[in-house]
């Protein structure tokens, strides 16, 4: 079983003949008919840090969720430490020594750290009270070198602290195999470095660690081997990091040559959108807004970079009109929209692409034609007060589907069946219309494959060249850098700095991003 001690020397050396820590072969998984994994495979050895790399939607998380017992695979085999084990629940995976730290932490916010850990301990555990749990946590935390305070309530902890709690929890449950899903996405650069060093130390002590990430560059220095996935398939299995170059990785991840976009020139026009002194008290989850100011000019893209959770959601909600700021003003083309309804803001030329397509952009129960016409019907188009011209809606939808090349769509079809990329195209077709003056795009290419991402970026570029302005808010630094004329960084609810694209350096951005704890 998994109590064999593995003594290790340098990178990836094993006892000769030792079975792999985790071996997945021929894994198939489809969700409601849509394939997510196709004959995927993955092999993890003891003592190594192994990165699974791929774009959003490549299947990395899905594959690991299968290994960790969250999803049930439709086909394939799995062994843990040489024995055939296919965990059918997270608890079975834990019993087999496999622990996963998910992107959204599995912690109860209102409980303290001890109470959360107490939840996970089995019935036969000797730990029965929060006090005993606290002692065990403190001991483990000291042992591995991760500072964790057992008495604090999880809701009060920072993201990095919560992640540490999750790791300690998983280790306390006896995990020898650790799977971390996008661990650095929510951390500053320094925190990320600390985590990656810790993870490497852990591996050298005998564990096996999997890092799921789409940021290859970041983890390259800390991994032993990488596996690349694309469209649910394994396109490169377990290659030693030293043997590959970055270009090849990018090519394998993306599948085709990346179209290099020219650096856009700075072209200042009239001020389209002016936000000044925007303040909002933070709620249970976010940072709130703190005297936020910026100005957006016609013909430009202002990119706001920054780690999520720094007020981006609140900013978009205030701009849309879904929530009201406590203080400050929003002016579009000279009109004061601070207290205007979403309807009036649209009338003034504001358009929104929200980060969560199906939560705030589309209604999945309605048809594609109805979604495309949603905002126009609200304006009064498509018929008069006594009759809704559904035929006209269908025609307009057919035209939009053609011109935006929306695949797998017909006007009558339910929007729920659209893939991520096509759903985003529907949103773009609707929002990028003639009356658009300011576009607020929040993580527009999140979860999209490379082709869809390029489409989205080109659409935004074209719209801006036509005279509109775009506020691009994204955690993806590449996206921000490739589209923006000016770049700002958002930190703790306000703008920490703003520069023209030509003046942006990695040190400047890194410093501003790291300003958040």
């Amino acid at each position, binding site marked *: 079983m998994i109590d064999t001690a593995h003594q290790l020397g340098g990178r990836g050396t094993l006892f000769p003949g030792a079975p792999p820590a985790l071996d997945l072969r021929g894994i198939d998984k489809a969700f409601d008919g849509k394939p997510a994994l196709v004959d995927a495979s993955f092999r993890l050895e003891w003592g190594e840090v192994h990165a699974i790399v791929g774009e959003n939607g490549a299947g990395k998380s899905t594959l690991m969720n299968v290994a960790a017992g*969250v999803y049930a695979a439709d086909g394939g085999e799995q062994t843990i430490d040489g024995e055939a084990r296919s965990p059918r629940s997270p608890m079975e995976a834990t019993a087999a020594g496999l622990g996963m730290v998910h992107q*959204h932490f599995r912690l109860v916010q209102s409980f303290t750290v001890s109470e959360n850990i107490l*939840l996970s301990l089995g019935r036969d555990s000797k730990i029965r009270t929060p006090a005993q749990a606290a002692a065990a946590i403190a001991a483990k935390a000291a042992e591995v070198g991760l500072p964790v305070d057992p008495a604090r309530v999880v809701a009060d902890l920072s993201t990095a602290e919560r992640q540490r709690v999750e790791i300690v929890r998983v280790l306390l449950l006896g995990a020898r195999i650790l799977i971390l899903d996008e661990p650095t996405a929510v951390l500053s650069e320094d925190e990320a470095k600390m985590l990656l060093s810790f993870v490497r130390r852990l591996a050298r002590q005998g564990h096996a660690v999997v890092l799921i990430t789409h940021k290859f560059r970041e983890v390259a220095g800390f991994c032993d081997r990488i596996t690349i996935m694309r469209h649910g398939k394994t396109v490169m299995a377990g290659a030693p990091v030293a043997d590959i170059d970055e270009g090849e990785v990018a090519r394998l991840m993306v599948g085709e040559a990346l179209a290099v976009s020219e650096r856009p020139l700075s072209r200042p026009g009239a001020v389209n959108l002016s936000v000044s002194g925007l303040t909002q008290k933070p709620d249970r989850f976010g940072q709130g807004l703190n005297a936020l100011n910026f100005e957006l000019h016609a013909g430009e893209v202002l990119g706001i970079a920054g780690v999520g959770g720094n007020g981006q959601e609140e900013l978009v909600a205030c701009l849309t009109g879904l929530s009201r700021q406590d203080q400050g003003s929003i002016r579009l083309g000279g009109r004061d929209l601070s207290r205007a309804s979403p309807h009036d803001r649209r009338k003034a030329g504001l358009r929104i692409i929200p980060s969560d397509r199906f939560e705030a952009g589309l209604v999945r129960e309605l048809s594609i034609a109805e979604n495309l016409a949603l905002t126009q019907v609200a304006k009064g188009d498509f018929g008069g007060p006594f009759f809704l011209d559904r035929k006209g809606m269908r025609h307009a939808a057919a035209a939009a589907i053609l011109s935006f090349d929306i695949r797998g769509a017909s006007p009558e079809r339910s929007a729920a069946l659209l893939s991520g990329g096509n759903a985003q195209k529907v949103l773009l077709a609707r929002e990028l219309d003639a009356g658009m003056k300011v576009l607020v795009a929040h993580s527009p290419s999140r979860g999209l494959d490379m082709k869809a991402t390029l489409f989205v970026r080109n659409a935004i570029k074209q719209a801006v060249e036509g005279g509109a302005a775009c506020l691009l808010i994204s955690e993806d630094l590449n996206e921000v850098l490739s589209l923006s004329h000016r770049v700002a960084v958002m930190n703790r609810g306000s703008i920490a700095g703003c520069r023209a694209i030509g003046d942006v350096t990695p040190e400047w951005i890194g410093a501003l991003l790291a300003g958040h704890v």
Partner: protein
Amino acid sequence: MDFLIGWLAIIPSYATPLLLASLGLIICERAGVLNLGAEGLMAVGAMTGAIIVLSGGNPWAALGGGAIAAAALALLFSLATVVKRADHTLSGLAIVAIGLGVTGVLGRPYVQKTFRGIETLGDLFGIDRGTVFGRIVAVQDPVTSALPLIVFALWWWLQKTRSGLRLTAVGENPAAADVAGIDIQLTQLAAVLASGVLCGLAGAYLSVATSHVWVEGMVAARGWVAIALVIFARWNPARALLGALLFGAADALVPRLQAIGADFPVYLTMTAPYILTLGVLVLSSLRGKTSGEPGFLGLVYLRQDKH
């Protein structure tokens, strides 16, 4: 003064069914299951209790029988919500319909037949009814007296024990509970059954201990009031005690006034408890996002959803 003492004396017994039902609902909702079927469960408990006594049974057995009968109906509810993952609101309404319907049909032969209730503390311990204290205590029954203990026990269980924490986790963040190895469905099933037992007990108390009769419609929306009181109590057993006493006081007003032969608009006065409950509900909501509400109340958790 006399009126006041008499009123205080009967408040606890009017608060008891409310409190029992609320406690059951707190357990159920803390596990994430919204149970709107309380009215139907209480009706089943009330009718069963009455039938058992009228058939010659012991009143204490009647209380137990009422609890068990309601638990059976709650089993149906859990089949719909926990196993079949049907919409909680509509399922609850269906349970109310089934509960009221079944009791209307089966209870017909037993309507308006009065019977003896359970013993009071005065009967059991021979308390001197001369003093004010004595007058108030003598009228209480063992169930009512046990309530503070029950409230404390539930509070302690929820806050301090591991199983109580696990229950709360299921309703608050089922993804976290799932990963911790807690069987979500089993927990919810147990919680729903517990609410059935307590609501049934509440209903049985209503017929066996308070009114000593079975009449169709005697639950009179108390199940709904209990649901409102859970919100007021912020899902905390101790606050539920306070809410139940408040409502019990309003509920006890009409019988008290009738007892002293006062001339007052009966039906209008009977609206007092409902207006009070409405007021209490509004006050609780004024506090903004209701604190204490289980994060996943009424929602269906699927392990294979994206979390």
